[in-house]
């Protein structure tokens, strides 16, 4: 049972990596939306 922190660390690391990547996609979408708005002007 001493290995449980490793299990938690592995699962947490997996989701941190995925969420970090999803965040970059959301930010790129937001930036693109701003660019489109500027182009429309």
């Amino acid at each position, binding site marked *: 049972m001493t*290995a449980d922190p*490793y*299990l938690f660390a*592995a*699962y947490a690391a*997996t989701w941190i*990596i*995925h969420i970090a990547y999803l965040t970059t996609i959301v930010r790129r*979408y937001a930036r693109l939306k701003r660019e489109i708005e500027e182009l429309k002007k």
Partner: protein
Amino acid sequence: MSFEPRALALSKLVTRNPKLPMKIVFPILVILTGVLLSYAMYMALSPNGAPTEQTMGMVQRIFYYHVPSAWTAFLLFFINLGASVYYLIRRCPTADILALVTAEVGVVFCTVVLVTGPIWARPVWGIWWTWDMRLTSTLVLWLIYVSYLFLRRFSSSGQTPVLAAALAVLGALCVPFVYFSIWFFRTQHPQPVMGNGGSIDPRMLHVLLLNWLAFSCFAFLVCWSRFRLEKLQREVDEAHAMRSLLDEPASPRSAR
């Protein structure tokens, strides 16, 4: 209302509004994938799902994230190979976008493999890392696809997609080597659980495949979002280029 008229009505609705699949289907798929991922995680962590391995104990449950992540990465790299080859033959921009997207998402999954592997190795082997064939070849595979992404990001030459496609073919050749390295070399890494004489408890196999399905659905959704983003980005870049051409002051020759 019978099924046929309903399907017809739906198809008419979709034809009238091409953005409808994204507006309706995508959120539904996100919810379904979220439920599937949660259920798969519960099955991976709970003794009701997969039995606890006797030698390693609870830490062995990292297996249900480590292995499906690797399989998903391999799957994405193979799609990248197909798209790259198609681009090299037909010069189809959609194939180029698909290649870029699958490489990017594949690198994310490969990163998960390279992070969860050492976290699992530390309590089991007593070391974080060893330069054995499986670990080293996985790192090399990751580096090839990271260099592919750097090439796509920082090179603005017209030949970039062709060069990237050629690099992708090279990277994909590395995938079977990574997979079969534990068959042909003596490595610290465990032998395969399936094939080559490996065996696994059916309940463990069930949870493993469930997690792979969940990760594959998640990867599909991420690829879909990233694909739309890339397509939109290229359209905006084209619009910028057109605008700068139109805004450009007339040259002396054209003024005459």
